[in-house]
């Protein structure tokens, strides 16, 4: 009887411990949501946007992100989309690399030399992404869906989501396929369903609290494939852009809220 009571008390205290942890995490999230370091990075990104760089010593201020040369308002919310000058669908990061090459005269190798930054030092593309995404706050996500290549990109993204591959046989849907699932304590959004895709896609790129890093969607695709035990996807490739296209199209209509915080 005594043992039973002890067991019950232990079970209760374990449950209470779990709740406390969840409550603490919630409190911390709220705290950082009120003043995100992402705002500081937006300022740094703005400087980079306006800074003359490359052999041509010009800034990116004439870069056309789809809304016209130099127009930042709503640009992020309408990506990925088809660009006639490149004859392909691009997301923000692929487009920025395109502008670095075509306008600043930099080599592609130079433009993508440092893709993913560290805790103390975000990369150029990460800072630019945070700044540009911030100019879409309140704008509904509406990636391009009219050009045949935009439709094809969306279809490819959807096929990739369910495509089982790699040393561990995973698809995106292996983890993001059923409702109410977790990896360890991390809840997994079912990203092919609009109600789950909307809040998630409306907050990328983001500041990641656990690693003090700025993270972008290209990083997210890269690190998911790393954990799926596949080889590495090329940065800004049709594959990664198609997945981002599929996710943003699924989140269609969600007002952009970012750049946000992630755990």
């Amino acid at each position, binding site marked *: 009887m005594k043992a039973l009571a002890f067991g019950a008390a232990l079970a209760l205290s*374990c449950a209470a*411990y*779990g709740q406390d*942890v969840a409550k603490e995490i919630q409190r911390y999230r709220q705290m950082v949501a009120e003043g995100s370091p992402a705002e500081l990075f937006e300022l740094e990104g703005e400087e980079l946007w306006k800074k003359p760089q490359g052999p041509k010593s010009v800034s990116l201020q004439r870069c056309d992100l789809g809304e016209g040369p130099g127009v930042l308002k709503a640009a992020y919310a309408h990506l990925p989309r088809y660009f006639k000058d490149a004859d392909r669908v691009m997301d923000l990061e692929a487009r920025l690399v395109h502008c670095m090459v075509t306008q600043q005269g930099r080599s592609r190798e130079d433009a993508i030399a440092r893709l993913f930054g560290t805790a103390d030092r975000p990369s150029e593309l990460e800072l630019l992404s945070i700044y540009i995404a911030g100019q879409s706050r309140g704008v509904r996500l509406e990636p391009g869906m009219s050009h*045949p290549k935009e*439709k*094809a990109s969306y*279809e*490819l993204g*959807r*096929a*990739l989501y*369910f*495509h*089982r*591959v*790699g*040393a*561990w*046989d*995973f*698809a995106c849907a*292996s*983890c993001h*396929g*059923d409702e*109410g*699932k*977790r*990896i*360890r*304590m*991390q809840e*997994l959004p079912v990203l092919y369903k609009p109600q789950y895709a909307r809040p998630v896609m409306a907050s990328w790129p983001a500041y990641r609290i656990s690693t003090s890093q700025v993270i972008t969607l290209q990083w997210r695709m890269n690190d998911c*494939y*790393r*954990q799926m*035990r*596949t*080889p*590495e*996807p*090329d940065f800004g*490739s*049709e*594959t*990664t852009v198609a997945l981002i296209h599929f996710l943003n199209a699924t989140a269609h209509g969600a007002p952009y809220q970012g750049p946000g915080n992630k755990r």
Partner: protein
Amino acid sequence: MRRLALLSAVLAFPAMADPTPADVQGIMQRDFHPRGQATMDRVVQDGLQRVCTETRDRPPADVAKALEADQLKTIVYPEGSLMGDWKRGEAIAQSGRGLTWNDKPGDPAGGSCYNCHELSPKELSHGTIGPSLRGFGKTRGTGPEVQRYVYGKIYNAKAYNACSQMPRLGASGTLTAAQIKDLVALLLDPASPVNE
């Protein structure tokens, strides 16, 4: 006129249709590059991955049966007892290392078990993609049949459920026979915290 409409419908179809798994594979072969131990052969689907992709993980019963029989043949059972040391098994269950492009080849891999399963009640941070395995050995004992089943399931989960989301941890070369034996002990040994 009707024939023309039909013809244009047929011609338009391939452009609008979803890309097939073979199309997707071709695009991945173009868009991915090898890094570290993650070589390009990994984007080539085997028959099982292909069927599971085509059927969204719900193959017809007869196809599933044939695939499972095929996968069963890959399992290599060591001689003697299949129960190792549950303490080492707990460490293997905790570790999520292995086979990624930034894991050093030759370093011991883990089973990533807690990522998806509840096992020891002491570990609160467990995933829920797979079923809870807490108390797994309590009702099943430690007999040779159950040892063989657990060893086989970890070695190649697809031999028991063709489109399971669980990796083929032995068949993929992630875990060694000794490591799988330690995991069998974690699940079955009466002294293991899983069976508290």
